[in-house]
């Protein structure tokens, strides 16, 4: 209960007294901005499975980059684009539903990463671990710059293509009639998705970036209706999850990345339950009033 009894010690001091907490906070908030604005479309368009697949699909790129010795972010981005391209190709040229092609690529890419790592006999490749969970405890200036760039690109992309994304999400035929080229818009959205994921996997890790892509926008859709409001609320919800997650990790010695993701998911569940409880209460009241 310390967070209630001595709020300044619990909420403010860790950030004020520790540079690493401040760095982690900034990196976390930038991650939230990038993932929330893109994640809103992911949630509204029902693309969560694709988001999950891309988050895992970067692994073979990371593995190859690691083995060859080039920049892992570059490898991750190439792999994400290859996966997105492959999925679209199969979707457009086969009668199979999209989730099947996503599933095939998801498994294929994950397996490829494991095979690549297994073939590296004798070398010390356990470093991949840190891409699964990230290292928000080790944020330096280069990380902050990369994260800020990704947030800027994501926000700019979403603002510029707002109309195209909006119409495509709610009425694909209409989008085509308006000359908004829904297929191109879809691909653009996927590129933004790749940017958000690749920028974030070194901070929160590629398993947990998916939590930030889906949980805050999902929470926001429960609370508000209009798309810009959903994005703003998602950023707020995600930011709260970052702050609470970091503080719990700081005060209670829990793994940082996972605690933030858990906070985001718990906030979604609390919102869901709170809403259900409110609805149940109002229904009961209206029933008793009717009697």
């Amino acid at each position: 209960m310390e967070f209630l009894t001595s709020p300044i010690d619990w909420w403010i001091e860790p950030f004020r007294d520790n540079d690493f907490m401040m760095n982690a906070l900034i990196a976390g908030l930038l991650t939230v901005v990038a993932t929330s604005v893109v994640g809103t479309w992911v949630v509204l368009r029902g693309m969560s499975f694709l988001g999950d697949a891309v988050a895992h699909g970067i692994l073979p790129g990371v593995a190859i980059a690691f083995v060859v010795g080039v920049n892992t972010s570059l490898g991750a981005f190439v792999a994400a684009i290859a996966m997105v391209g492959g999925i679209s190709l199969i979707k457009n040229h086969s009668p199979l539903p999209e989730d099947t092609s996503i599933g095939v690529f998801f498994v294929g890419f994950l397996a490829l990463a494991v095979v690549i790592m297994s073939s590296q006999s004798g070398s010390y490749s356990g470093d991949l671990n840190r891409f699964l969970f990230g290292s928000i405890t080790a944020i330096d200036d280069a990380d902050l710059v990369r994260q800020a760039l990704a947030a800027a690109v994501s926000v700019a992309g979403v603002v510029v293509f707002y109309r195209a994304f909006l119409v495509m999400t709610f009425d694909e035929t209409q989008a085509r009639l308006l000359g908004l080229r829904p297929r191109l818009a879809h691909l653009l959205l996927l590129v933004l998705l790749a940017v958000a994921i690749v920028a974030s996997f070194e901070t929160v890790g590629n398993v947990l970036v998916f939590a930030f892509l889906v949980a805050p926008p999902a929470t926001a859709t429960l609370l508000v209706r209009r798309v810009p409001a959903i994005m703003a609320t998602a950023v707020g919800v995600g930011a709260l999850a970052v702050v609470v997650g970091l503080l719990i990790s700081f005060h209670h010695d829990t793994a940082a990345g996972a605690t933030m993701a858990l906070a985001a998911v718990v906030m979604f569940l609390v919102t869901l339950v709170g809403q259900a409880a409110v609805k149940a209460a109002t229904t009961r009241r209206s029933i008793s009033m009717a009697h």
Partner: protein
Amino acid sequence: MNKLILGVTGLLVVLASCGSDNSDQVAGVSQSSGPLVIATTTIWADVVEQVSCGQANVESIVPAGSDPHSFEPSLQDRGRLEEATLIIRTGAGLEEALGDTLDVVADNGSPTFAVSDHIGADLLGDDFGDGHQGHDDDGHEEEEGHEDEEGHDDDGHEDEGGHEGEEGDSHDGHKDDHDDHAHADGDPHFWLNPLAVIEALPHIAEALVEHSGLDKEATDECLERYRGELEAVDGQIIELVQGLPVEKRKLVTSHDAFSYFAERYKFDVVGTVIPTASTLAQPSAGHLDELADTIGEEQISTIFAESQHSTDDVDALAERVPGVEVVVLSVGTLGPPGTDADSYAGLLLNNAELIVEGLR
């Protein structure tokens, strides 16, 4: 809807209680006062404790029983690192998930001491060339050889790039598959050879005096006493191993961890279940088949798992060869207090006893 509410509330209660449990225990805090020294693993924490004999407050980041390869630090750990007067890490790539954090802390100016930096090239790394004698050699008269190699430090580091090519040559006497599994550039578990740690002890003591302000005389005294203890343990292990016929000194372990032990005590690492040190790697069916055949051919009676890893893969391998037992060794972390492996010296001796007993 009511069920949903109940379910989620239940989940939240469980989460909340996990949280409060955690807050009650502060991990790895020893009661002694004095300047804070943080070691990454419980093994280095024990070594530092011995060298400082109570003058410092020694804590470990990776708790006992956890795998140092994959441990992810909390922000509290990050804060403790920041407060430490000295940070002792294994180096050599062991602390993978923790490595980034340690690098950033070091860049920020916290004094950091990587034990692997202070161990001669003949003990660390893949240069088994000069000091290496055929595994069939019975004697352990290697000690003299090690002493005059302390000065080779620099040469060893410079050649690092060229070792891969040489490895085949210097391993003439070995089986072919040795090249696949000998960890050479992969195995950071050098502390399984006590001579490596003995070599690093004076440097650890020096760092403790310099950065943590420990009393030099008292520390040197502790250092000498501990050096004696480790040398005695080394002697005991040699004696134990001499009771084991040369043709039985063959190790099959779960991952790349015993090359330093094998090098010191004249064992042959016949194979490892997980072919690389990566946690994402899996053993291939062909590899396991080959390994099972080798175990049968070499008539190996016991294969070894590690306390901080799942024993599934090793158990499965043992099941394929009739009569093979699995024994669990401590590698990256000390055993719980009160067990034979609850100190570094105890861990060394206990492993050796289990290995010799198992292979006899």
